[in-house]
């Protein structure tokens, strides 16, 4: 038998079986089950069925991130239900409305380990591949069943290897690489595939940048995404309080079989923008430069981590947000907020005129930043479907934090390199 892909190895580990091939269906025992604000649905289902015992409360991680804090009495009651359930059932890994986005919070807290299999009630659970884990999104009923039985069926995916070399030109970021890939491969380009990122570029990325990569792989339909764990991964986990002997990295074998190998040269790239109304509708920023904006949102699990805010602050330092634009910045987590407050990034953003909200999903999940007919937002998030941020007659463009910040300054979609030139001249 030839070598194995990461996905084969991860599923073999989680199912306790050997020699799996793509297409096979097995029961796996996930290491962690993440559920967000909508955990109340699962709890009500369980209560309706009279279930009182969980398979392993320590494998449950609940984060109140989507509507945080409550806007309606119903939201408040849902949060309270989750809070009380967690306490009653001994669920230790519970984060309340003040913690931030589930994915980022779990990674920062050391709960996501290389080689492990994590399911989450959120499609962007592919993000856990940034630490070399197998992360995938599931539905509420699936996670509810897993709470009780500890297991879930999974079909072994085909793997696609994406080799990225070269260095990004100034003003261009991992978000631009991913938008270009999504544009090239299409929203269904990697349906049910394990997306393995390789080559010299992914190895040079920070864990935060790898998160952007693995998060956005979902927008091509990927089942999971993966960047090989390395010393950067280990150092991140050291900081998260995860001892190196507590996890085992899984690496794909040399002769692993891939459905396809895709190569991309990062050095040939310019900033990219995804235009309405689908994520794979991607053009170089210059093609839409000058499009008038009403709002800019820097947030979401794709791009609201500390380095994203820092990039935005570099562009916004000494500048002001255009008078007709609202710039909303939602730090991904409490830890991101902390770093931004300590480093001066937060102060720079406030002085430039940004509206800083509490950490969480914020406007990406429709909690704030809602638009009315005819309005237009440029967002660093991962989705631009009609109606996602309010009216079906509004428009969402997606770009990097640098593109977002530059566009907030000019009030129109702007190539960030235009402002960078302004600095040096």
């Amino acid at each position, binding site marked *: 038998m030839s070598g194995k892909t990461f996905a084969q190895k991860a599923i073999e580990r989680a199912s306790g079986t050997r020699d799996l091939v793509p297409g096979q269906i097995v029961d796996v025992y996930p290491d962690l089950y993440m559920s967000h604000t909508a955990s109340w649905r699962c709890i009500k289902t369980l209560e309706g069925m009279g279930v009182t015992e969980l398979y392993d409360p320590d494998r449950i991680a609940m984060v109140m991130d989507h*509507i945080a*804090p*409550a*806007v*309606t*009495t119903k*939201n*408040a*009651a849902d*949060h*309270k239900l989750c809070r009380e359930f967690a306490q009653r059932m001994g669920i230790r890994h519970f984060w*309340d*409305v*003040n913690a931030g986005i589930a994915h980022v919070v779990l990674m920062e807290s050391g709960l996501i380990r290389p080689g492990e299999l994590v399911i989450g009630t959120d499609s962007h659970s592919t993000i856990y591949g940034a630490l070399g884990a197998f992360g995938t999104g599931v539905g509420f009923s699936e996670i509810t069943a897993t709470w009780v039985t500890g297991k879930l069926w999974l079909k072994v995916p085909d793997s696609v290897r994406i080799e990225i070399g070269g260095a990004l030109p100034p003003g261009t970021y991992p978000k631009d690489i991913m938008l270009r890939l999504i544009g090239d491969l299409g929203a269904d380009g990697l349906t049910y595939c394990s997306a393995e990122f390789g080559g010299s570029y992914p190895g040079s990325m920070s864990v935060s940048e790898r998160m952007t990569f693995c998060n956005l792989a979902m927008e091509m339909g990927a089942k999971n995404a993966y960047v090989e764990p390395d010393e950067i991964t280990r150092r991140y986990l050291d900081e998260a309080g995860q001892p190196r002997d507590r996890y085992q990295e899984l690496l794909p074998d040399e002769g692993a079989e891939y459905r396809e190998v895709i190569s991309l040269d990062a050095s040939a790239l310019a900033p990219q923008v995804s235009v309405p109304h689908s994520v794979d509708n991607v053009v170089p920023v210059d093609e839409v430069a000058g499009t008038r904006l009403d709002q800019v949102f820097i947030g979401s699990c794709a791009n609201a981590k500390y380095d994203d805010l820092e990039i935005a602050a570099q562009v916004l330092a000494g500048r002001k947000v255009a008078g007709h634009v*609202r710039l*909303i910045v939602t730090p991904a987590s*409490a830890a991101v*907020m*902390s770093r931004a*407050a*300590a480093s001066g990034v*937060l*102060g720079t953003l*406030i*002085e430039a*005129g*940004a*509206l*800083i*909200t*509490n*950490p969480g999903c*914020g*406007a990406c999940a*429709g*909690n*704030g*930043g*809602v*638009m*009315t007919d005819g*309005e237009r937002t440029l967002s660093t998030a991962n989705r631009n479907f009609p109606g996602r941020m*309010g*009216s079906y007659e509004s428009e969402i463009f997606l770009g990097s934090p640098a593109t977002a910040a530059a566009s907030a300054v000019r009030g129109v979609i702007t190539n960030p390199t235009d402002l960078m030139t302004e600095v040096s001249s």
Partner: protein
Amino acid sequence: MNMAEKILARASGRRAVEPGEIVVADVDRLLMHDLSGYLTGQVYDREVNRPVRYPERVVMVFDHHFSPPTEQQAVVLETNRAWARRHGINLLDCGSGNLHHAAVRGGFIQPGMIVVGSDSHTPVHGALGALGVALGNDSHAGTVLPYGKAWFKVPRTVRIEVSGTPRPGVSARDVALWLVAKIGEGELNYAALEFAGPYVKELAFWDRWLFPLLCVDLGAKCAYVEPDEVTEAFVRTLPGGSVDRLERSDGQEAESVLRFDVGDLEPQVACPPTVGDVRPVAGLAGHPVQWAELGGHGGGRLEDIAAAARVLDGRRVHPRVRFNIVPSSREVFAEAVRAGLVLALHQAGATWFPPSTGSNQAYNMGALAPGEAMISTHARNFPGRNGSPEAEMYLASAATVAASAVAGTITDPREVAA
């Protein structure tokens, strides 16, 4: 004449006015927030439909929303923006701060002005020696927007003299809460209240602010602290700050004088269902709270944030409490960042929110579930104002709010901070 009389006389072109007279006065400033501005704009376009006479005098501040959570709310804001552009009025969009704080920080309020607003706490501008009066949306649409005028019945003046030195740990907010109970809700209907006496005069500007804020709870028409060197020094820090029109009493006696001594006061808490249900904190000690918040008209000042930071120094927010901090203005948020207070309080477990009215009326945040309780620096505690009518809102000083956030129950701040 007393200060209110002098301002009304000048603004109505008379040499003198007396309590009970009805005058038509020129209005210097109209303040509206995103909700009242929307209603006023609708009535104006439908019933009056003419250019705003003095658009430069009109200020709209988006403060109940900082980031609209529904499309319906987004439409309200967008309608307001379009209205503001069409009429050329001043618009401070989301994140600028609480209406009254943002108006002061933006240099829109000066001593001697007549300031009207469709917010019941508009009299707070008496802290700068302005005559602040809350009017209805229809009055604004009917006379203020088209003519720059409003009619007033000249109020009688009641002086509230406060003396004594409060014990350590008892703040101006405690004194203010206590005064509402001592005087009684609705007991001073249509009076002009002058807050005076050695206690008030020795307060810094932003502590004085808390007293005219009480006007509406007492039923009064307006309230103020006679402007003095503290007021003048503060006004000079504001953009375009001018004391050219400052007015003071000419020595005329108030119609009546109420005297209070605060020497024996304990920290106070206003309990649901009304602002006047005020008790010493000791009587409520141990009552569980799940939420704590600095913000609203009565809080979110830099002073509140600093007081909370002192309480939380070396301590953490209780794991079962969410502690929200809502700066009263963008300027306060920036000052708090520079002073290291944002970092310190965040690391102690508090969560920062955009400058706004915060959880007030739960338009953008702050809905409570049945059985939950919040302790806050807000100005109102009516049942149902924050989500469920089965939830409770307690009002207190920033130090009591912070101490309660640490303990998870209503707590005397003197027990936490040594």
